[in-house]
């Protein structure tokens, strides 16, 4: 029986590792995800078989297993199917938070019932402390991240000030005191309660001040934490499989976080402790009122597009919010039918999460080959007739290249200003995520088309039809 258990566990670990590995290649990603799901099923099956063969599983246990499975599984499946593609980042944050909650609850169970779960001794208590601490931070942090992305929460003013560091340090110290008390006493409800509350509040305090643009990095980091929490839970219940899988996710999540930071040209430290980008740096060259704005009608935009040979679309979060990807696809279809070359310039952090725009445009049937990464498309802008910027802002701000005083300085951007004509579709003159003025809008070759992306694109489609673009 032991042999079977180890065999199943080894196969499960192998498949999980291959799954995570495969997820980093476009070609193999989908089957890799399915492989990981199979591995997870195998691990659960292996655990059930092992217990059936040794201690047995009581009727009451089966009942509660089925209840938990039914509720969690059904809710998970419904959420996964229903959630719109635009709110992917929030969804990942929500799922991640629940994983952290699960580790937290298991650790609490082990703390209250050490005899049943064989969680006695120093190692067990330390593992419980780690699991509770990391689990609680993961849960509250992920929920705050989700709420911020959904727009349910905004950062209170005092959270932007230095005072938040004092509060967070106090919370961290309180968690540490609770942890030491727990370890010294062996156990205790008082210490446990303090630990749960302090680490939960710490999760909120650390996540709340972080700006929306940096949220993906935070979610990735919290994802890594939930792996650590799972590994700690593995120590609590004595499961090697849990430890391996948790450690794997923890480490891989850390690497992914680093990769994402590199894409945004931000260091992890500045994301975590720097607060919202631009919020504290009013002295920089970023501020100031707009002068010299040229706005134009949809009709003019259509006429310019008709005369173009090469058009590049720059999608941003505004496009996602307006759910305009399908309308955009219709516009580009008629342009393509007229023999105009259309490409999409995808900034690494376009939208609210890396890869977000790719997902949205793929949903609207945009051929994968037309999505060009920043380094590929940037040399092409001087030879481009028209650039259509749809709800993107900071990723096309030339300040990042030209103004060393700008908070954006150094961030890789799309050089759209080098194209002959730039149209920026935007709801109003409000600033982007960073709150920084965009010099692009004042350039002579830039025209603003004000309005909701979906409405503007709909009108544009009508104008193009009237002009007979793409009709044979």
């Amino acid at each position, binding site marked *: 029986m032991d042999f079977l258990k180890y065999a199943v566990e080894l196969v499960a670990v192998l498949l999980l590792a291959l799954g995570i590995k495969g997820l980093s290649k476009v070609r193999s990603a989908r089957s890799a995800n399915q492989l990981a799901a199979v591995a*997870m099923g195998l691990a659960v099956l292996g655990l059930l078989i092992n217990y059936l063969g040794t201690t047995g599983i009581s009727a009451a246990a089966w009942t509660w297993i089925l209840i938990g499975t039914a509720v969690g599984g059904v809710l*998970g499946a419904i959420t996964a199917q229903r959630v719109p593609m635009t709110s992917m980042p929030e969804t990942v944050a929500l799922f991640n938070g629940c994983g952290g909650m699960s580790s937290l609850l298991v650790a609490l169970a082990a703390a209250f019932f050490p005899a049943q779960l064989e969680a006695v001794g120093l190692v067990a208590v330390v593992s419980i402390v780690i699991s509770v601490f990391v689990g609680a931070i993961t849960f509250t942090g992920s929920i705050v991240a989700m709420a911020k992305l959904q727009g349910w929460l905004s950062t209170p003013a005092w959270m932007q000030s230095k005072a938040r560091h004092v509060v967070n340090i106090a919370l961290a110290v309180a968690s540490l005191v609770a942890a030491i008390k727990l370890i010294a006493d062996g156990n205790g409800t008082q210490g446990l309660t303090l630990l749960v509350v302090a680490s939960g509040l710490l999760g909120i305090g650390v996540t709340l001040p972080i700006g929306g643009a940096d949220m993906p990095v935070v979610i990735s980091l919290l994802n890594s934490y939930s792996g650590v929490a799972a590994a700690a839970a593995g120590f609590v219940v004595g499961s090697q499989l849990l430890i391996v899988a948790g450690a794997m996710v923890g480490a891989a999540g850390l690497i992914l976080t680093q990769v994402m930071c590199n894409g945004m040209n931000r260091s992890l430290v500045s994301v975590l402790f720097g607060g919202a980008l631009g919020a504290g740096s009013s002295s920089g060259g970023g501020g100031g009122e707009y002068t010299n704005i040229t706005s134009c009608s949809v009709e003019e935009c259509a006429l310019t597009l008709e005369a173009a040979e090469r058009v590049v679309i720059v999608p941003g979060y505004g496009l996602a919010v307006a759910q305009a990807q399908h309308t955009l696809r219709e516009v580009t279809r008629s342009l393509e039918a007229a023999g105009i070359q259309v490409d999409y310039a995808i900034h690494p952090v376009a939208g609210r999460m890396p890869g977000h725009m790719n997902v949205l445009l793929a949903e609207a049937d945009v051929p994968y080959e037309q999505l060009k990464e920043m380094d590929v498309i940037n040399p092409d802008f001087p030879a481009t007739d028209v650039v259509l910027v749809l709800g993107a802002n900071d990723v096309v701000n030339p300040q990042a290249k030209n103004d060393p005083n700008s908070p954006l300085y150094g961030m890789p951007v799309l050089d759209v200003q080098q194209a002959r004509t730039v149209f920026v579709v935007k709801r109003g003159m409000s600033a982007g995520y960073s709150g920084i003025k965009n010099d692009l809008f004042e350039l002579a070759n830039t025209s603003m088309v004000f309005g909701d992306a979906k409405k503007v694109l709909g009108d544009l489609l009508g104008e193009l039809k009237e002009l007979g673009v793409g009709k044979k």
Partner: protein
Amino acid sequence: MDSSFVEFLWVLLLGSLLGLELIGKVPPTLHTPLMSGANAVSGITVLAALTAIIRSGDNPVLLILGSVSLGFALFNVIGGFLVTDRMLAMFSRKPARKENR
């Protein structure tokens, strides 16, 4: 407990090293799906929740605590894998259609 603890530490070390090596270069396109997929894997705490339920000795509080934990973990696992699949399905569909043209 001591010898198994050392064994666990080895497992932790090797698992972490494996995780560090698994992801090298990831195209930005895949950042969201990869994060989502890895997140689903972190729901492996289902195993801990199941263990808590099975070893509960029919203690009602422990049964319920384990069951709630299982629910949260499965929400993460099933939701995570399905949503990742939904995202990736959109990518993999494209090349096939192109060939048909």
